[in-house]
C-alpha cells in the first residue's frame, strides 16, 4: 500500500491526469475566449467604421410599420417593443393551435396506421411517407399559392354553406353575436372543470379505500357539457349570429382568418402530424401483446384495458419524442417570414431592416425561441416525471 502511495506521489505533475485536466480546460477556455475576443473586437471595429449605434434604445422608438394581424391593439404609431410583442403573440397563437390540432390529427393517423383494415393502414402509411419527405417550406408555399391562385376574389367568394366564405382574402365565417351569456358560459365551463377535478380526486380516494368504482367519464362529460348549456338556457338561449356581409370590396362582420395564417397552420399541421403519427405508432407497438392478454385475463373490459394498461405504458414511450415534435413545430413556425405571416421572426426581420440593429435583432430572435423551447421542455419534463414508471 505504502509503495503505491509513494509511486503516485513520485509521478511528475505533467503526467498526473488531474493536473493535466486542469491545463487542458484552461487551454480550451483560452482558445474560446481568444476566438470570442477576436470576433467581438472585429465586430466593434466594423460597427464603429460603419457608424452603427449599438444598444437596445431602438426598442422605445416608433415602429411606423403596420402588422397584418394582431391579438392586441397595435398601430404604426406604437413602439418597436410593442410590435415585437405582437409578433411573439402571433407565434404563440399559431404554435398553440398548431400543436393541439397536430396531436389530434397525428394520433388519428397513427392509429389508422395500426388498423387491421388493410386499405386504411396503407393510406396512412402513404400519407406519413409522403409528408415526411417534402420540405415544410415547400408545403407552406404550396398552400399559400392555393389561396392566391385558386380561390376567387371576395366578390365571387366560394360559399359552401351559409355563414362560410372562402376567397383570396382568407376564410370568413359567422360567429355567435356578442352577448353577456357567453361570458357566463365561459365562467361555467371553468367551474365545471374545477368540479370535475375535485370529483375525480374524491372518486380515486374512495376507490382506493372501498373498491367502489365511480362512473367518472360519464359524470365528468355530463358536468362539462351540461353546466355551460344550462347557463346558456338560463340567459334565454341567444342564437343570433354575426354574419359576414359583402360591403364594398371586402367582408364586414363575422370572423376572418388570413390566408397567411391558414397556409402556415395547414403546412405545419400536415407536416408535423406525419411525424407525430410515427411516434404514436411506435408507442402503441412498444406495449407487448402479453400486457393486453394479462389485462383481459383478469377480467377488464376493453375500454379499461386501454385506459388502465395500454395507454399509461404507451404514453411513457410517446411523450419524449412528442415533446421534440412540438418544439419542431414551434421552431418551424418561424418559416412564416417566407409567406408574410407576421410572426416574431418576421416582425424582427422588418425591425432589423428599418433600424439596422442586426445583432440585437438576431439575438432577440434566438432569445425568444430559446425561452419557448426551454419552457415547453420544462413543462413536458414535469409531465413526463408524473407519467414515469414508479418502481418499488
Amino acid at each position, binding site marked *: 500500500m505504502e509503495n503505491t502511495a509513494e509511486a503516485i506521489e513520485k509521478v511528475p505533475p505533467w503526467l498526473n491526469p488531474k493536473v493535466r485536466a486542469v491545463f487542458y480546460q484552461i487551454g480550451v477556455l483560452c482558445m474560446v475566449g481568444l476566438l470570442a475576443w477576436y470576433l467581438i473586437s472585429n465586430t466593434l471595429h466594423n460597427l464603429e467604421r460603419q457608424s452603427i449605434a449599438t444598444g437596445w434604445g431602438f426598442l422605445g422608438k416608433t415602429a411606423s410599420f403596420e402588422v397584418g394581424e394582431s391579438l392586441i391593439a397595435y398601430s404604426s404609431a406604437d413602439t418597436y417593443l410593442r410590435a415585437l410583442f405582437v409578433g411573439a403573440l402571433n407565434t404563440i397563437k399559431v404554435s398553440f393551435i398548431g400543436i393541439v390540432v397536430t396531436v389530434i390529427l397525428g394520433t388519428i393517423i397513427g392509429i389508422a396506421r395500426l*388498423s387491421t*383494415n388493410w*386499405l386504411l393502414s396503407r393510406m396512412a402509411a402513404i400519407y406519413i411517407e409522403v409528408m415526411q419527405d417534402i420540405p415544410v*417550406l415547400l408545403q407552406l408555399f404550396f398552400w399559400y399559392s392555393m389561396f392566391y391562385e385558386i380561390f376567387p376574389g371576395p366578390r365571387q367568394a366560394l360559399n359552401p354553406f351559409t355563414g362560410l366564405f372562402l376567397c383570396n382574402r382568407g376564410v370568413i365565417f359567422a360567429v355567435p353575436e356578442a352577448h353577456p351569456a357567453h361570458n357566463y358560459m365561459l365562467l361555467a365551463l371553468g367551474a365545471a372543470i374545477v368540479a370535475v377535478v375535485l370529483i375525480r380526486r374524491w372518486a380515486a380516494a374512495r376507490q382506493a379505500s372501498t373498491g367502489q368504482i365511480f362512473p367518472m367519464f360519464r359524470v365528468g362529460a355530463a358536468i362539462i357539457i351540461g353546466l355551460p348549456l344550462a347557463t346558456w338556457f338560463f340567459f334565454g338561449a341567444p342564437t343570433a349570429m354575426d354574419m359576414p356581409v359583402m360591403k364594398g370590396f371586402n367582408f364586414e362582420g363575422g370572423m376572418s382568418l388570413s390566408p397567411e395564417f391558414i397556409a402556415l397552420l395547414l403546412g405545419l399541421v400536415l407536416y408535423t402530424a406525419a411525424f407525430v403519427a410515427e411516434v404514436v405508432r411506435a408507442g402503441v407497438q412498444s406495449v407487448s401483446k402479453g400486457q393486453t392478454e394479462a389485462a383481459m385475463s383478469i377480467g377488464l373490459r376493453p375500454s379499461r384495458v386501454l385506459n388502465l394498461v395500454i395507454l399509461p405504458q404507451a404514453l411513457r414511450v410517446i411523450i419524449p419524442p412528442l415533446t421534440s415534435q412540438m418544439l419542431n413545430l414551434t421552431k418551424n413556425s418561424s418559416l412564416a417570414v417566407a409567406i408574410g405571416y407576421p410572426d416574431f421572426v418576421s416582425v424582427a426581420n422588418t425591425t*432589423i431592416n428599418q433600424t439596422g440593429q442586426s445583432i440585437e435583432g438576431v439575438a432577440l430572435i434566438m432569445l425568444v425561441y430559446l425561452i419557448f423551447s426551454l419552457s415547453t421542455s420544462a413543462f413536458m419534463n414535469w409531465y413526463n416525471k408524473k407519467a414515469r414508471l414508479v418502481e418499488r
Partner: protein
Amino acid sequence: MAMDSTDIQKAQIAAAEDEDDIRPPVTSVGVVGWIRANLFNGWFNSILTLVTLFVLGKTVPPFIKWVLVDSVWLTGGQACRDAAGACWSVISQNYRFILFGFYPYELHWRPLAAMLLLFALLFYSRNREHWKKPLFYAWIGGLVLMGVLMKGGIFGLESVESTQWGGLPLTLILSVFGLTAAYPLGVLLALGRQSRMPAVKALCVVYIEAIRGVPLISLLFMGSIIFPLFLPEGVTINKILRAQAAIILFTAAYIAEVVRGGLQGMSTGQYEAADALGLNYYLTMRLVILPQALKIVIPPTVSILISAFKDTSLVVIIALFDLLKTSQTVLSNPEWMGFSPEVYLFVALLYFLGCFSMANYSRKLEKELDKG
C-alpha cells in the same frame, strides 16, 4: 384380413382423390378470403373501407385526369391557359433554369457531371462491403472534383463565380458538404459533452442546447447579416459560404446528440478493457469506442442527412437560388404565372425521391446492422 387392408387402401385413395372437393371454403382463402379478413372483418372495418373507397373514388380519378389526361406538356404559356388539365409545359420549357439556376447556359454539363459523380459515389457506397479505405479516398477526391467542376478556373475550365450557382446542385452541395463538415464537429461536441472535464462539458452542453433550441432560420440570418461584421476589415466571404457555415453549425449540434446516443450505448466494459490495455484517451476513442459507437448510429445519421437535405430549402429566405428559389423565379415570369401547383408538385417530387431513397436505405441498413 387381406381384404380389410385393401379396403382401407381403397378408402385412402378415394379420400385422396376427393381432396379437391374438401378444400377450405372460398370465403376464407384466396382473393375473397383476403378481402374478408383485411377489409370487411366486422361492421366498423367495413364502414371504414367503404368510406375510404368513396373518398378515393371522389379524389383520385379527377386528379389523374388533371395530371395525365387533360394536361399539356410541350406548349407555350398561352396554350396552357386554355387547357383544362395540368400545365407541365412550365416544367419542360424551364427545366434547365429550375435545375441549374443562373449557371452559364452552355456550361450546364459541368454541374450535371458533378451531380452524376455524386450520385455514382452514393450508389457505390450503398453496399457495406465497399466501406473500406479506398472508398474514403474516393469520396475526398470526388468532393474535390465536384468543387472543381462547379468552380472551374483550372484545367482550362472557364471560371464560374459561386454567385451564379443555383438550383439542384446548390441544394446538394449545401446538404452534402454541410453534413461532411458537420460530422467531425458533431463527434467532437459529443465527446466534449461526455467528458469528465467540467469546463469542456459545460461549453459543449451550452452550445448543443442553444443551437437545438433556436430555429435554423435565425442562424441563417446570423450568417447573412452578422458574419460579415465578425470579419476583419476588407475580408469578405460570399453568401453561399456563409449560409453553408450556418448549416454546418446547426447540423453539428444534432449530430452531436445522435453520436452521444451511440456513446452512451457502449458498455463500461469497453472502456475498462481499453484502460487495461494501457491505451490513452485518444487511442481508446479512436480504436475502441468510436468505431463501435459510430456504427450503431448510422441509421439516425442518415435521418439527419434527410433533414439537412430538406432544411437547405430554407436558404430561399436569405435569397439564395436553390431548387425552390429557381422554381419560384420561373413562377414570377408573367408567362408562367399561376402554375404554382404544377411547379411545386415537380419540386416536391424531386425532394420526395431523394428523401425516400435515403429513408429506404436507412431502414435496410438498420435491418442489416441488427443481424450482426
